[in-house]
């Protein structure tokens, strides 16, 4: 999933509405049904607010969710 996020340079133009900072990639853990994955997500360097991009949520993340649900 990391490679996927790295190509999302456009998120550098996104800003945290409350802090005004440009988003940067931040190492984060995501979990589902007991499995933990390390991933980089766009986040505000000041307050830490982050978000999960649409391409990730409806693509790779959905695939992994389905695999884990059948485990």
């Amino acid at each position, binding site marked *: 999933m990391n490679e996927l996020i790295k190509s999302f340079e456009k998120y550098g133009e*996104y800003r945290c*509405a409350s802090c005004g900072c440009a988003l940067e990639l931040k190492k984060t*853990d*995501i979990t*589902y049904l007991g499995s933990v994955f390390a991933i980089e997500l766009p986040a505000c360097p000041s307050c830490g607010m982050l*978000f*999960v991009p649409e391409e990730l949520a409806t693509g790779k993340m959905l695939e992994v*969710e389905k695999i884990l*649900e059948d485990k």
Partner: protein
Amino acid sequence: MEKKTLVEFENRCVQEEPPGCRAACPLHLDGRALCEAAAKGRFDEGRKIIQKTLPLPGILSRICDGPCREACLRQEKGGAVELGALERFCADEGPFRRPRILVPKTGRTAAVLGGGISSLTAALDGAGKGYSVTVFRGETGGRELLSLSPVLTEEMVEEELEWMENLGVLFLPWDASVTPEGLAGRFDAVYAGLDDPLCRSFPELMEREDPVSLETAVPGVFAGGNTPSFIFRAAAGRRGMKSAERFLQGASLTSSREKEGPYATRLFTNIEGIEPAPPVPVPPKGYTRDEAVREAGRCLLCECMECVKSCVFLQKYGGYPKKYAREIYNNLSVIQGTRLANGMINSCTLCGRCERICPGGFSMRDLCLTARQEMVSQQKMPPSAHDFALEDMAFGNSPEASLLRHEPGHSRSAFLFFPGCRLAGISPRTTESVYGHLRKVLGGEVGFWLRCCGAPARWAGCRKELEKAGKEFLDQWRSMGSPVVIAACTSCLEVFRKELPEIRAVSLWSVLQEKGVPETAPIRSVPAALHDPCTAAELPEVRAAVRDLVSRTKVPAEELPLTGELTSCCGFGGLQECANPALAAETAKERCGESPSDFLVYCAMCRDLFARTGKRTMHLLDLFFPPSDGDPGDLPPVSWSDQRENRAALVRDLRKYLWKEEEKMEADRDALSLVMDKGTEKLLESRRILAGTVRRVIRNGEVSGRKIARPDGTFIAGLKPAAVTYWVVYRPREDGTFEVFSAWSHRMEVKGREEGAP
């Protein structure tokens, strides 16, 4: 699932039972497989099938008298398949290439008396069991086999005898010193083939005691094959050597041998509609290749598949119930690894049609429902499968979308109109009209009850939630004085009948049939195909009431080919639409394709799912309570979002205008107004993101200020109300509304999100 339960399920499915020809053959030659290969011109495959089953294939395949003919289902459709002639062509077309299997010698010895087919079969089988076999035969040295049929040549007989010698069978001449008693003393077991006249000269062999074991008066000596049928002679030899084996093992000579000879198969094959075709005549020299291919093509390749033929779901997974039962059992037994059948278990519509079609009464509904309940109790149910429906059920029972009242101006209820979530969500207008009509025709004391009956929890296998909802349901019903519930939805009726038998419930359709419908001008007289909802399949009185009501309209109704108790689901039943939306769309499309006419339905969900495929579909209530403008067949399907909002709006409207409760009502918390184009609406519908959720996400972003600003002036806000996290892209507009551009969701949780996320 217990192994015992699996076996009970499996036993009901007859698809794996042998075809009639195979069951009727005393040696169980697979005629269906032979014909399947031969019809494709694959005669080498045919020979493999023959040599696997028949002893002496070079002889028996040419002279078999074909007792299978009597069991061949083609018999009624032009004449039985000429399987004997097909076997003969296979044998003539090329050589048998038998693999020589080395069997370890057991040290046991067996003697075989006679040189006929029965004796030689016994000898072959004995060699195959690892015995040292000695055949005592007359002086002709096997040439008597030639006399069995003019089609046999010396070469053919020689080849078979040579094969036996290669396997180590020893042939000795029979002289006067050889007697059954004498052999029984020198060998561990003895078989005598009574198709050889020499054997018939011993009275002790002819006084057989047991037709199952072929045991004779002499212990350890077995005899059989005194029959004109060549194949039965061979079968006796096989049976006799099996008895010899049991005798040597000290096992029972008679137990569990029912299926050794011919038996009646349980396989059901529907031959309705099959065009009769006469057999290809067999020339004295046997078939040509072309004739053999044509004759094999007449085989019906008997199989059942009755339930699969008419079920999109059963077709989807490429098998049949017996196979599915094993897959589901394995799925439930997985401790570590992938559960391959989760999708299948959750995709059944639970309509029960397979059970009604199946000659053995196999119920995929019971199987899948049992599996779902087990998965839920083992906490192995994929959260995504039914969450949406369960959440909708919770919404349906929330104060926002539920309502329980005596009729305005009354303090007790003799009846309670129970429209159900779907009718109220898809057509709140009709719901109100029907309620008004019922109050009129029933003369008062007609209360109103909107809530969920519990069907989603039942279908999802959530027994705990269902029981909790059922208790609440009963409490509410009793609080109203236990009135008669008038249910508009057959799924609700099914839940009452199966889970809450205490509830006195009748169908709205029966009430309308008895009390009458409003006089309305005929809307149209174009014929329409009447579709019964799957949950009406077990409610004949409801189906009859509906047909009576339809006859009062001006719509000429047609019956679909599969109707009444054999009706099919629209794709919503059993939460198929929730767990497998693509399959549900196929299910609806398949059903709609059964007639070019418009559809007439009496379930709101059926109406909506059919309308989504583009089929013009009318709800019966729309004929009696027509929309003020336009044709009911033109009404658009209603999105999940709108269904929810319609229910909430219906509750608000009824409370405000009918029960005059405005002062008690809370202000509408969901007032935030959304604007989105059709494409976005469709995207959100397909992702099951409701307008209400979008509002909550935007409100959260706007109130907390925690949102992401994009260079184009739009914002992204997120919220995790329960298990799912939602993200919405939106732009506040000057008029105070919010334009929505996209929304998505995920179930994975971002760790430490509490601090970091919006």
